[in-house]
């Protein structure tokens, strides 16, 4: 076997992710030499590393090549996911700086874990091989287990990390076993090659087709845990509630980004032809749309009952996973893979900005003792902090999907592709549950604007525990993203309009 030359490895195509990995390793060393009271420097260096990776990503954006022996794809899908991951990570760092200081958990390792996790997400989006998917998924997840338990001597934070860890490892095992079965059926772990062997396997009617089917199912279970869809969602509320708020914000976005990127790649590149004879619809479509429907219904209805804002946002994030899964399910119809991927990417970017913004505002209201932010904490916010209340209202409207916000653009593209796939019942469930979601999002607006008279007297002008310059920047950035994507969606759709997962390699 030939040893590939550096040129054949085509490292430059993978440079956005590789540079972040290298930069993080370097930062691990640099951090050793930073004095204990100046750990915020690590945060700045981490932001610098992200910026470098972002610049490399711009250069690699329009490429359409593979790297590392076909294990890594550099295309617009990768580039767009990388942008979302980098933006989300940067905003999370801004959220973390003062939070860590306030909770006496300021350690350099935090930022390094964050960057490693982001690297994992970037590799996941680019993975064209089951091995890479697995390794990248672990690189994404393992730092998150630690970060969830990062608050020292806090039982809830440790419990959150433990739960996340057990269910995360559990789901990885499903993923590996599923990958093993698919490998057993097709003889390869490369997604593109799996695609070319699927038809042959189905034609032979051997045990291989059973392996393929079972492998796909286990893969769906494994990835379903990561992106938190029903019935694999039960860890989400506890983990989100217990983890430090910036970590929750980060994992609610980036873990979903990575998970769904892999989900789309596997389903659209490798398995679209996994269909019954003479059918243009992949066999997994029905399963996925049922899961999506269950996710939408459960996520939105249970969220209504929550009074703790972090838990509410946890269920809301489950519900949003359901909307994105609608697009993945639509990809099961022949010819819709690309538009489904585009819709899902736009939705993910829109969700990134909006959800980070919402978590950021919730973090501002959080007291230093780490107690829960409840819906009542929002009462009268529009008097005390008019600007903050306005921004939170805007994020809530975006999560509902009201026009002029990014949330509308995402929902609308997802519904459109679902309709094109002929999944009309799913589309109807989708729109009706978003009315349900309006109920609990609007409740925050009600508390901020409409129930001010019940607020305790003397609250006016009270300093907010979590407010700081960096957090404000993070909130403004999220707001700008939400608004611009809502008014000028063409900026984002232009970035994805040639995403071609399905057609990249001719059949």
């Amino acid at each position, binding site marked *: 076997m030939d040893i590939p030359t550096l040129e054949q490895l085509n490292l430059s195509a993978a440079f956005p992710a590789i540079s972040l990995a290298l930069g993080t390793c370097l930062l691990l060393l640099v951090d050793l030499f930073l004095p204990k009271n100046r750990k915020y420097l690590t945060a700045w260096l981490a932001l610098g590393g992200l910026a470098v990776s972002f610049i490399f990503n711009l250069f690699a954006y329009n490429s359409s090549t593979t790297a590392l022996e076909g294990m890594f794809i550099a295309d617009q899908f990768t580039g767009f996911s990388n942008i979302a991951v980098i933006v989300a990570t940067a905003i999370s760092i801004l959220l973390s700086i003062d939070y860590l200081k306030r909770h006496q958990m300021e350690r350099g390792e935090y930022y390094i874990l964050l960057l490693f996790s982001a690297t994992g997400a970037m590799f996941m989006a680019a993975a064209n091989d089951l091995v890479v998917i697995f390794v990248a998924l672990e690189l994404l997840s393992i730092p998150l287990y630690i970060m969830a338990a990062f608050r020292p001597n806090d039982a809830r934070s440790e419990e959150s990390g433990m739960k996340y860890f057990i269910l995360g490892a559990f789901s990885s095992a499903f993923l590996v076993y599923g990958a093993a079965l698919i490998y057993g059926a097709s003889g390869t772990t490369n997604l593109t090659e799996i695609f070319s062997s699927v038809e042959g396997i189905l034609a032979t009617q051997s045990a291989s087709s059973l392996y393929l089917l079972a492998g796909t199912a286990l893969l769906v279970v494994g990835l379903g845990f990561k992106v938190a869809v029903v019935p694999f969602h039960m860890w989400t509320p506890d983990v989100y509630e217990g983890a430090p708020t910036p970590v929750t914000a980060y994992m609610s976005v980036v873990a979903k980004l990575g998970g769904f990127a892999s989900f789309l790649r596997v389903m659209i590149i490798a398995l679209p032809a996994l269909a019954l004879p003479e059918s243009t619809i992949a066999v997994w479509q029905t399963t996925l749309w049922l899961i999506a429907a269950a996710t939408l219904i459960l996520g939105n209805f249970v969220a209504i009952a929550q009074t703790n804002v972090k838990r509410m946002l946890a269920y809301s994030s489950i519900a949003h996973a359901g909307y994105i899964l609608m697009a993945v399910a639509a990809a099961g119809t022949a010819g819709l893979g690309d538009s489904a991927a585009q819709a899902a990417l736009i939705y993910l970017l829109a969700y990134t900005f909006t959800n980070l913004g919402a978590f950021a505002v919730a973090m501002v209201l959080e007291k230093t003792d780490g107690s829960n932010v409840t819906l009542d904490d929002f009462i009268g916010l529009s008097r005390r902090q008019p600007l903050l209340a306005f921004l939170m209202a805007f994020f809530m409207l975006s999560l509902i999907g009201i*026009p002029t916000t990014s949330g509308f653009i995402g929902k*609308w593209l997802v*519904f459109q592709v679902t309709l094109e796939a002929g999944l009309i019942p799913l589309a109807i469930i989708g*729109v*009706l549950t*978003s*009315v349900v979601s309006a109920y609990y999002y609007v409740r925050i607006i009600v508390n901020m604007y*409409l*129930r001010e008279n019940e607020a305790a007297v003397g609250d006016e002008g009270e300093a907010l525990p979590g407010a700081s310059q960096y957090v404000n920047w993070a909130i403004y950035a999220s707001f700008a993203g939400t608004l611009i994507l809502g008014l000028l969606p063409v900026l984002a759709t232009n970035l994805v309009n040639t995403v071609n997962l399905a057609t990249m390699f001719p059949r």
Partner: protein
Amino acid sequence: MENTGLSLTTVTLFLPMVGLTIIAGMALLDAEKNRENFKWVAFAFSILTFFASLLMWANYNSADPALQLVQRNDWLPQYGISYYVGIDGISLLLVLLTTVITPIAVFASFRSHVIHERGREALYYGFMLLLEWAMIGVFVAQDLVIFYIFWEVTLIPMYFMIGIWGSENRVYAAVKFFLYTMAGSILMLLAMLYVGTQAGTFALPEIVNAVQSGAVSFPFDGLFSTQSFLFLGFLIAFAIKVPLWPFHSWLPDAHVQAPTAGSVILAGVLLKMGTYGIVRFCLPLFPEASVAWAPVVGGLAVIGIIYGAWVSYAQVDMKKLVAYSSVSHMGFVVLGIFALNAQGLQGATLQMINHGISTGGLFLLVGMLYERRHTKLMAAYGGIWKALPLFGAISLIVSLSSMGLPGLNGFVGEFTILMGAFGSEVLGFFFALFATLGVILAAVYTLAMFQKVYLGELDKEENKHLEPMHWQEIAVLIPILVLIFWIGLQPVGFFNTMDTSTEAIVNYVQPHIDEIVVENAASVSEAP
């Protein structure tokens, strides 16, 4: 598709946004110091918008059935969506209604106690302008997605207006308003997406042309087929907004809780968005389904007319009475539309304007009484004419206009609608007959209210020393009175403006009336 230059429509549409930006800037700079200035900015820009819309009217050629003052720019080219605005006669009249009602509502807010007490003038007047922007947008949008954006945006300011400056039960009413209307419109979104995906574009005129030429067709096969479901997807959204019986339950709550200006805009313009949507989307896009469903929708409209009138009569709260009377009046509009002939449609369009003016006026009057006595119960009044003769006289005129006295605006609209309904090929005699009953009932409840509040003895001590009318209150009512007489005595100008446009819409539907109605008649005669 070519991008076009700036059009007058866009200027009119975005003038309120300029005002909103200025208000936002002032609020960010120094909200406390500018407290008294916000209202003037809002008023100035709503007046400017009014003049711009008058310019639109002047530039409108009523002989030309095509869209006019069009502007079209790419918004999301990959998905066939463009910023596409333009007007025909129906749009133009409703834009004018909006630009007349908004300054009135803004000016009427100047003297409102509630706004003074609760403060937040920047928010209040900002929302007014946002609302005006969205309402004009709804009437000029010629692209499905753009229409939907404006349609949904109207929800937000109205929700806050009811919720922040409303009366005791405002939170409940605001949330109910929001969820109710959103539930309706979200199904419309699905139907729009389906239509747009099938047609490959979201530009309404192009889709309508494709439907008429048969290039795109939505299969129709009776009351429950693809086309009918799409029709219903649109219709339910519009019916909730109108509100058509039995979708009306949000309306009394919203009206009773909303501040006066909110009620004026809600009744004056927002409800018309529903009937306008039916005319603009349901009829041209789904002609067969419109014909097939016409008797059902017409029946609901007639039930609404009778029911609204009946319930109005039973009210003790003036605002609730006017709210339920809206259900009745808007039933007339829907009936006129689903007569599916030129007369019915013209009457319906004119009645949209009339209802906006008269009901808006009634809400203003109720608001003025409320400012003086802080109650809306009719039992608390009596003999007000003696205390405030000018006020009583104006109230009499507006009430008579609302109940349709000949010589005033309400009569022209209702009469044309009834003529249309009598002559309709799809509705038949009984619809018109029961609707006529509604006219009589309207006289009963309107006069009953007038009698209880204004006539009789001035026997309550509190009512004897009511503050006389302020010049601002008179100024607000003058445009309403002018319009009441103008439309009542000289409706020709209004009919001319919309003539070609209503004609065009009726022409879309007409061929299918013969087809479907004749077919049904044949199947009836075949049956044993």
